[in-house]
């Protein structure tokens, strides 16, 4: 006990250390936490709103069964007439021409579709009143379009329909997608077939190439080379899909046609290869990570037993990384499935149901991209496009959830391939 200890001494007092309420601290924490909820909220909102907007697709059909077609249908056909005829009437014909025709027809085909594009801003203007007054006109618009859809020869076209109630379901499974003709048909089958074809082709190209490349980068390449390969391939992920689509449309399509000599210039084959370019970085990066994550002891054990480098890579590393590679391919599928711009530009956009890879196809995503700008807000066609969107979203969500199951964590950076 020395003397200077006698003075004030106890600074550790309940008083001086009483818990303080710090407003800024409290505020910061609450704010940050609530912002963090945004991602969850967005996912839920996406699901909710995309699905909500697809409701017209169901309501129309149901209404048609209960209410007699109203005479108010008057303005609807006009509406269609004013904004659509160029596309609606021409599309089927154009596509048919395309099937038979030669390559040279392609530019003309576009010429045929051109008025729609040129009109796009006006089309919007045309559709605006509907959009703006939506809350009020919603019902009215529905009714009119219902009658437009339902009264007209829908039934006569498909006498196989037993009950009108089932009409909606059955017609969604139809094989004809003619949304803007006099008697619109919304069969999703050709779209599914098209999407499936393109996805298969893309993955058949992308998966082996990316997996082999990842194997080279992780097992065969010297470290200095690996440092270069990864970022270089990841740069491909940075190419905007519209650029890849443009390249496929202008350069690849012609090149491949000359090489294989098929008839239709733009088809699922061209589109598939272009989309393979988009999914290669995704599959490559995740596979590469899965391969490098295999502990060195595995490889050393194999090498110590006298296996060569390639034997180790193929018989030890590759099998051990199977879950990761599976997830990589799944995410590659997801990437292709939802790809819009490349599909719009390189697949020809004809809703055909054949299985020939050298036919034009129309994918689900491309259908939304191509037609959404031209529909009347709130009508059947609009609802169906959103319904397709919901399907895409659900499909992608499931793929992501499954892939997540295989490679927990670290996923996002890889998806972007950066």
């Amino acid at each position: 006990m020395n003397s200077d200890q006698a003075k004030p001494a106890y600074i550790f007092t309940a008083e001086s250390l009483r818990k303080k309420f710090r407003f800024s601290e409290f505020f910061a924490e609450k704010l940050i936490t609530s912002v963090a909820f945004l991602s969850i909220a967005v996912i839920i909102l996406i699901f909710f709103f995309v699905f909500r907007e697809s409701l017209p697709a169901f309501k129309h059909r149901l209404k048609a069964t209960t209410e007699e077609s109203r005479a108010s249908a008057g303005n609807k056909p006009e509406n269609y007439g004013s904004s659509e005829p160029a596309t609606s009437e021409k599309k089927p014909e154009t596509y048919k021409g395309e099937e038979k025709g030669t390559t040279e027809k392609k530019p003309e085909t576009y010429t045929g579709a051109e008025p729609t594009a040129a009109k796009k801003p006006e089309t919007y203007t045309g559709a605006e009143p509907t959009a703006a007054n939506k809350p009020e006109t919603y019902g009215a618009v529905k009714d009119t379009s219902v009658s437009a859809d339902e009264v007209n020869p829908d039934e006569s076209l498909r006498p196989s329909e037993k009950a009108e109630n089932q009409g909606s379901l059955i017609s969604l499974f139809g094989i004809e997608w003619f949304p803007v003709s006099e008697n619109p048909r919304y069969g999703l089958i050709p779209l599914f077939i098209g999407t499936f074809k393109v996805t298969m082709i893309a993955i058949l190209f992308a998966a082996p190439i990316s997996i082999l490349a990842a194997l080279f980068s992780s097992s065969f390449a010297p470290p200095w080379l690996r440092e270069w390969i990864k970022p270089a391939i990841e740069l491909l992920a940075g190419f905007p899909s519209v650029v890849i689509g443009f390249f496929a449309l202008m350069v690849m399509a012609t090149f491949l046609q000359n090489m294989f000599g098929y008839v239709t210039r733009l088809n699922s084959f061209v589109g598939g290869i272009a989309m393979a370019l988009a999914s290669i970085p995704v599959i490559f990066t995740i596979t590469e990570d899965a391969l490098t994550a295999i502990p060195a002891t595995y490889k050393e054990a194999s090498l110590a037993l006298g296996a060569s480098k390639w034997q180790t890579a193929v018989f030890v590393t590759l099998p051990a990384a199977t879950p990761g590679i599976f997830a990589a391919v799944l995410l590659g599928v997801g990437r292709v499935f939802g790809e819009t711009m490349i599909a719009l530009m390189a697949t020809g956009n004809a809703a055909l149901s054949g299985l020939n890879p050298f036919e034009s196809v129309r994918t689900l995503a491309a259908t939304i991209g191509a037609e959404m700008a031209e529909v009347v807000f709130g009508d059947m066609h609009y609802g169906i496009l959103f319904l397709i969107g919901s399907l895409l979203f659900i499909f992608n969500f499931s793929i992501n959830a499954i892939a997540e199951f295989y490679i927990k964590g670290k996923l996002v950076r890889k998806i972007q391939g950066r």
Partner: protein
Amino acid sequence: MKEAKIITRDLTLHYGQKMALNSINIQIPEKEVTAFIGPSGCGKSTFLRCLNRMNDLIPSVKIKGEIVIDGLNIYQKKIDVVNLRKKIGMVFQKSNPFAKSIFENIAYGPRINGHNNMHKLKEIVETSLKNAAIWDEVKDRLHDSALGLSGGQQQRLCIARTLAVEPEIILMDEPASALDPISTGKIEELIFELKKKYTIVIVTHNMQQAARVSDYTAFFYLGELIEHGKTRKIFTTPDIKQTEEYITGRFG
């Protein structure tokens, strides 16, 4: 023994299911240097980090028992941990200056306490650097990055940074373990100076260091406090066999 500054009562700590400290009872005297020694993983650093409630940051940690400083249990619910840490400074094993200038490193603590008067800040920075015996080395480059200093200088800078907050107790977690002998010597001299004003608790791996700088020594083994007493006694005539074995280098 001087008056006890810190008293712990049955301090027990779990990491999840694993017990890391078992019922520690110790009295740490005021304005003396107390050294914690023991083999690595014995809980001495964990215990040190209990003293300023740094372990609160690890979610899986569960603590029972009391740590009483000046008669106040710092594990009471109503204790403000932020203000508590202002009173108990800490110097870490690896010198960890911020990527700021030397001046800003020292001024960091005063600034968060609301001192923004530049004149006053300069004064605090100068005093702290002088007290940490590094003023002469850095006074001409206060606005250079602290990362440009040597390891030993960085560690003394971190001590100065701690002093600038005017704590009463300074906890040091192997402060010289990464330093060369000359820098270590400087730190030890500094500790010797500082104990005139501060209660110092130092964790060390190096028994010579404990013998040189500390007045009291506590030996930890497997999460238990084995023996605690005057340094001279612990190093010459320990009561317990394990302590003796450790000190004579038979294990650890």
